[in-house]
């Protein structure tokens, strides 16, 4: 009997995932974390996000003696490539990256290639106050998270529009097309495969389909053409009336802010309901900009942090991930003056004081209230984004 148990344990060992340091022994993690330096690879294109990350760094240093270095990426995929190169070279113990701001296709690729540390997310002390039921934090673009990344912010698609030029919100993708046809050259979106550009394509697809639930399953060759036909028909009509007739596109989401401020376009997509308010406060947008969502709702998802399998400072990274789930950090990121990112916390699980801090936030002129944000549409399976983006690139982008 004893032997049997041992054999069972041995047989199970290769399949059970053990994380060292063990997040369940939190005191040991905190002790190990002290004095560690965590290199957080996160997209560096948004100055408000950079400021927030710097603040997180100050706080975890004060509280836990963890030094946080923000490695500013132009593209999260660079970090994936780096970890892959390290694995290729046998650097398995102390890679250059300790934490990555990640979700979607990058997460799916890293998880599939066994490049991630964990599971750890659901053992973090602050997981208890995360709204794991109500918010999509256990699946990432339909891929099960299984504790290999820790959520920290909620995002939902909104459209920023200049009320000086557009009288009322446009309730659907078709309404956006009609408006664009009446006002040629005044709308554009970031060029796919930019993340937000691909999001625009998904949002269009979700809104154009009668029943978007087919997008929850992976792409199949049989139905792909039929499902996406409305999208291509839509884009064929839209592209000629886009800014620069679709011959050039802004490189990223924030680049659209500059176009609105310059008066080149009047309408732009955003994945952060608070971005417009923050940008107005930073003089990056005219104060006449407001936001709207589509009548059928818009796509929403969570942003995560993940730890590469070869991080030498996994303890420090987990301490940072846990801190980012604290009410203090979540209130700050939710503040539109700071960042305006949605919280992943469950308001009912918070103490009265923390709850009050959230309630006291003035979300700002251009931010919709949670009620106005309306229904959240599920992210399609990542294979849709990949396939649709590749197709877009061939039809309208760099592959034409």
């Amino acid at each position, binding site marked *: 009997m004893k032997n049997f148990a041992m054999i069972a344990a041995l047989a199970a060992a290769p399949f059970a995932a053990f994380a060292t340091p063990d997040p369940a022994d939190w005191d040991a993690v905190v002790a190990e974390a002290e004095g560690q330096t965590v*290199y957080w*690879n996160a997209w*560096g*294109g948004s*100055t408000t996000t950079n*400021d927030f990350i710097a603040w997180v760094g100050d706080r975890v240093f004060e509280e836990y003696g963890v030094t946080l270095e923000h*490695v*500013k*990426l*132009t*593209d*999260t*995929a*660079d*970090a*994936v*490539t*780096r970890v*892959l*190169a*390290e694995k*290729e*070279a*046998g650097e398995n113990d102390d*890679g*250059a*990256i300790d934490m990555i701001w990640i979700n979607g*296709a990058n997460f799916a*690729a890293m998880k599939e*290639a066994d490049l991630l540390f964990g599971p750890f997310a659901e053992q973090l002390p602050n997981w208890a106050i995360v709204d794991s039921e109500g918010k999509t934090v256990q699946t990432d673009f339909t891929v099960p998270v299984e504790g290999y990344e820790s959520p920290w912010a909620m995002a939902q698609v909104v459209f920023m529009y200049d009320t000086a030029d557009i009288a009322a919100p446009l309730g659907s993708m078709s309404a956006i097309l009609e408006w664009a046809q009446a006002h*040629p*050259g*005044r709308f554009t979106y970031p060029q796919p*495969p930019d993340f937000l550009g691909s999001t625009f394509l998904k949002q269009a697809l979700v809104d154009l389909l009668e029943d978007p639930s087919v997008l929850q399953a992976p792409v199949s060759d049989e139905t792909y053409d039929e499902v996406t036909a409305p999208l291509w028909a839509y884009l064929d009509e839209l592209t000629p009336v886009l*800014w*620069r*007739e*679709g*011959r*050039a*596109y*802004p*490189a*990223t989401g*924030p*680049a*659209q802010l*500059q176009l609105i*401020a*310059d*008066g*080149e376009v009047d309408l732009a997509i955003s994945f952060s309901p608070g971005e417009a308010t923050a940008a107005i406060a930073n*003089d*990056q947008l005219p104060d006449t900009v407001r936001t709207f969502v589509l009548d059928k709702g818009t796509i929403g998802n969570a942003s995560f942090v993940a730890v590469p399998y070869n991080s030498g400072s996994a303890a420090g990274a987990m301490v940072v991930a846990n801190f980012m789930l604290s009410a203090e950090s979540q209130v700050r990121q939710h503040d539109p003056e700071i960042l305006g990112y949605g919280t992943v916390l469950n308001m009912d699980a918070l103490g009265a004081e923390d709850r009050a801090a959230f309630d006291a936030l003035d979300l700002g002129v251009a931010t919709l209230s949670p009620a106005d944000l309306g229904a959240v549409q599920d992210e399609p399976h990542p294979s849709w984004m*990949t396939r649709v983006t590749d197709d877009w690139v*061939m039809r309208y*982008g*760099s*592959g*034409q």
Partner: protein
Amino acid sequence: MIGLCVTALVNNVPTVLRFLPALTLFAMLGPVLAGLWGTVLPAFGHIPAAGLTGPSFDPFHALFSWGGLGKAVRLSITTGVVATALSLMIVALITAGWSGTRPFRFMERALSPLLSVPHAAAAFGLAFLIAPSGWIARALSPAITGWDRPPDLLIVQDPLGLAMIAGLVLKEVPFLLLMTIAAMGQAQPRRSLLVAQALGYGRITGWLKTVFPRVYRQIRLPVYVVIAYSMSVVDVAVILGPSTPPTLSVQIVKWMGDPDLSMRSTGAAAALLQLGLVVLVLVFWWFGERLVAALGNRWIQSGHRGSHDRISRGIALGLGALAAVPVLFGLASLAVWSVAGFWSFPDVLPDSFSMRTWTRHGPDAFATMGETFLVAGIAVVFALGLVLGCLEAEYRSGRQMGRFGVWLLYLPLLVPQTAFLPGLQSLLLNVGADVGLVPVVFAHLVFVLPYVFLSLGDPWRSWDVRNATVAQALGASPVRVFWTIRLPMLLRPVLTAMAVGVAVSVGQYLATLLIGGGRVSTLTTEAVALASGGDRRAIGVYGLLQTLAALLPFTFALVLPTIIWRNRRGLHE
């Protein structure tokens, strides 16, 4: 007798000096060759970590089935060749028409600031100047144009890459002009020009016929470098170039960074194609040189004295101004953006000014500037030591560097960065080198070394060796000649070479990002990361500091010799 002299010279060379050329070559070419090997493997489908084992031609099949390939390849070639040809033409015209005059001396002084503006910053400046919502349109609107909104015109990111060519020309004209001025010291243009003018040739015609052939021979390799660089540049192409499709190099970087790991092999295949394109274009250029030389000879023999000289000179000056003014306005726009409040079209200036951007980004930016200088400083000191050692070894052994040697020297500059840096990254990891400052310094050395050699080699060699003969006749040892005669006399070129080295190091983007694993951030990596977000205010701060980081050493190179040799006029003029 001569044989004896040579033997005596060779025996004079200490062992250390004899090894230096080999060590220098290794420092420059080792990483390039290893990196290329690291590119060849995935290009033939060999990426073990992604479960791919080659060899196979799948990556090339994938590459050739990419719809944008034809346009991307055409763009790389046209932008590279046109930018180089235009730059060379402008430089030749300016030098022909104005060298030795007061406006030319003014241009010489303006050269260092122009050179030190990083490519990315210059590209931003240009984009903001010529865009439909840019400064020119704002200045004319609405009064003259009647626009109260920017017109929907495709000026920046045009499919032909014209804006990109303009951006490249802005940066290559100062570079080639610097190289031309350096080369003119040996060509003795004044005498030739006097003779030509005495024979009735116009100034430009006379210069082109008598001086240019000699000058061109010396700036040939820099011209090749400009071709290779322009064909494979990434940052300028991202900002000013088209994106539907982009140039081949931009697409390579995109493939290399694709979350689908197998795309790296397509990127590697494209990197080899890019390498082949550069080689091909250089070969064509070489034939072009022969053709121009033949036509030029006929032109020279025709004996035409040249007319329209005044008009040509005017055009030359206009072109020179056209190449310089946008950079200066671009810098000004960075400065204004860095202190701008809300600023909309068609306002020529922002609604309000504030130091908020500086208080927000200043502390980080200045800290990054420190790290930038640290990397640049170490790399340049290493480079200078190696280059001086090589030049001294060359001089003492009496063996001039052969043509092959010169080509080897230029190899790191002629190989597109995208072709070997990702491979180099894997190599460094394989030998267990920790990520961080040290590998980055060595990666920078690959690019800094040739440039330092390039700017120091000619002035060093053209130094009048009779000075050494006199000193040695008076009993000075070769070591003493080096330290007390040659080095002090060549202080200005040495400092200029160092400044060039710093500027090159400051401008490195891919090398810093890939080899540093993101743990080393310089002003350039930060600026390009910000660039993707399009926050012009933050770009203003980083772009200005980036320019400053490259400008300071040039200022030292200009001012120090004048101060140190203030009572020895011959040494600094």
